[in-house]
């Protein structure tokens, strides 16, 4: 059973986590409609 992607919705929070974890960010712009 696959897990779910735990999306972050705050730009600055994502960058902070990227710095903390030494990772890059995948930014997904999606159409909400």
């Amino acid at each position, binding site marked *: 059973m696959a897990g779910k992607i735990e*999306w972050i919705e705050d730009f600055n929070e994502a*960058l902070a986590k990227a710095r903390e*974890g030494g*990772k*890059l960010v995948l930014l*997904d*712009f*999606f*159409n909400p409609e």
Partner: protein
Amino acid sequence: MDAVTYPDEDVTNFIQEHLIPLRIRSNQKPLADDFKVTWTPCLIALDNEGKEHHRSVGFLPPEEMIPMLLLGMGKTRFDLEDYDRAMTYFDRVIDAYTQSGSTPEAIFFRGVAQYKKSGDPGPLKGVYDTLNDKYPDSEWAKRAQPYRLIG
């Protein structure tokens, strides 16, 4: 993407393990304008300062998602002049995803990264030879054409 690609187990695990997943509505100001988003899905690889290094616009099926992400991770490291890590990502695309649309570009940048690291132009000729042999119809084979003249 939500119906097909993101629920794929391999895709989910890869993103959770290797990336910080950030989701923003395409009409959210000012970010959508800052990144000049005009069509979705729009996936962008960012470094930890928020700078863009790779972009994919339009639907990607599960089998194309991981190689595209690896290519983006490689291009980010390439731009940051971390050529060893960049080549590691490009090699993963080249070795494991031979049928992917991302592979010719990975071959191209793998050779350029090797050249930038070593100063030896030989890998650029190798880029031309490999692309011409395995992916002759790709746009990256055309971009590598000048390298055929390297002796």
